[in-house]
């Protein structure tokens, strides 16, 4: 297992940088994660709406939502989501929100 240090704390990540244990994440790690993967910073209120939604979905369903679900349920449109997380909202938001890589669909 790989580890990295964020906001002074050591956390476990997989080979793509996704958290292994969502409980190791704290809010002050998000800006650093965002910067690393090219999410525009400083993080806006809208970014935070999405990150909080990602975490609540993860804890409820066991996996992060897809872009479509995110677009329908978070109140942020798909177009806006791609402005906030240009390289793919589902993945980038999951990474910043400190949840494991979404399983996606099968």
């Amino acid at each position, binding site marked *: 297992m790989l580890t990295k240090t964020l906001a002074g704390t050591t956390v476990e990540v997989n080979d793509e940088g996704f958290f292994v244990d969502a409980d190791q994440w704290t809010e002050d790690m998000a800006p650093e994660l965002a910067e690393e993967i090219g999410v525009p910073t400083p993080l806006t209120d809208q970014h935070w709406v999405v990150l909080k939604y990602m975490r609540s979905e993860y804890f409820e369903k066991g996996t992060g939502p897809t872009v479509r*679900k995110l677009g329908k349920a978070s109140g942020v449109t798909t177009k806006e989501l791609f402005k906030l997380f240009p390289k793919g909202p589902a993945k980038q938001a999951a990474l910043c929100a400190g949840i494991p890589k979404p399983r996606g669909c099968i």
Partner: protein
Amino acid sequence: MSDLKKLVILGAGTGGTLAANRLRKKYKRDKLQIDIVDQNNQHVYQPGLLFIPFGLTDPDDIVRKRDRQLHKGINYHQTAISSVDVDANSVSLEDGSSLQYDVLLIATGAVLQPEETEGLTGPGWMETVFTFYDMEGSTALAEKFDDFESGHLVINVIDMPIKCPVAPLEFAFLADWYFTDKGVRDDVKITYVTPLDGAFTKPTASATLSSLLEEKNIDLVTEFNTGEVDGEACKLIGYDGTEIDFDIAVVIPLHGGAEYVNNSPDLGDELGFIPTDNATLQSKVRPNIFVLGDAADLPASKAGSVTHFEGEVLVENMERFLDGREPDVEFDGHANCFIETGFSKALLIDFNYENEPVTGHYPGLIGLPLLKESRANHLGKLMFQSFYWHGLLPGRDIPGIGPNMPKSGKKQPVSS
């Protein structure tokens, strides 16, 4: 007091039909009344849609009457469903009538939602932009392919979930065969465009399928998120502004649950799929509602084979429920898909919630090769149509094949 229970089944496609027939065999008519509703009387063998554009199947060969697939003693209602009232245990139908139930089975599948993507159904729809996911699209495409001899064919999956996630790849492989057979393959460029980060969702299968694409000279574009389709300028436009030009685009539109779900309070999720227990197939909405097939929000493939394996589990759990016991028979997410690769060959993949598709043989050490092209698999795929009408829908079991995924005969992947 009568002990007649009322079961209402919504949708008489793959799942609704097989469940109705299995339950009719199990229960006397004075114990269980079965009513089933569908909006039309055309039961399409959907895997056959893949073959129509290439002239390998005629539309007439894959459609049968829905009511003819149902055993005697099942009441068939041909009308659209308007809504379900989960508190009143009642279904409203478009013809103005309603049906009361003791137990409800939802099997209304997934619908295509092309209008959800900007421009997709605008100018060029069915002229330069097609889908093969319904009868209208696949027959229009057959005509278009007839005199298409050079240009860029782009196959694009807009986003998951979709029915039969391997079908778009099969389409690309068959297109390679079709244009080779026509002698114009050098003049037809084929590109496969997906929002996923590989050819397929599961790592081992994805690697095999990527190398097949490469072997067949089909370009692969990953992580493309289609925001708009312009059928006049012939461009796919990504949310990030990247563009892909095409002469023909074959698009797999977004999928959602049936429309009535959104008109039924508390029934579905944001996409119109029904929240369902992964193992028991009982809905999370109400204990007396069960779900079968594509309509469920399960993390399994939306496929006929999955619906078939689910069927056995569902029937047992529904029986337990009707007896006042807990539904505790568990479905493991088993899926089994033939992947047509052109030139009379096919691959086979077999997997479930926990185990990704790997190599080996199915259903045991002696059997069809997994994740490997073979003629036997191609024949398996062709034979499936006959099994569908004569085995699967009437509710017959396949000797030696239970609902759960077999493990013998499989090479387990080295875990990373």
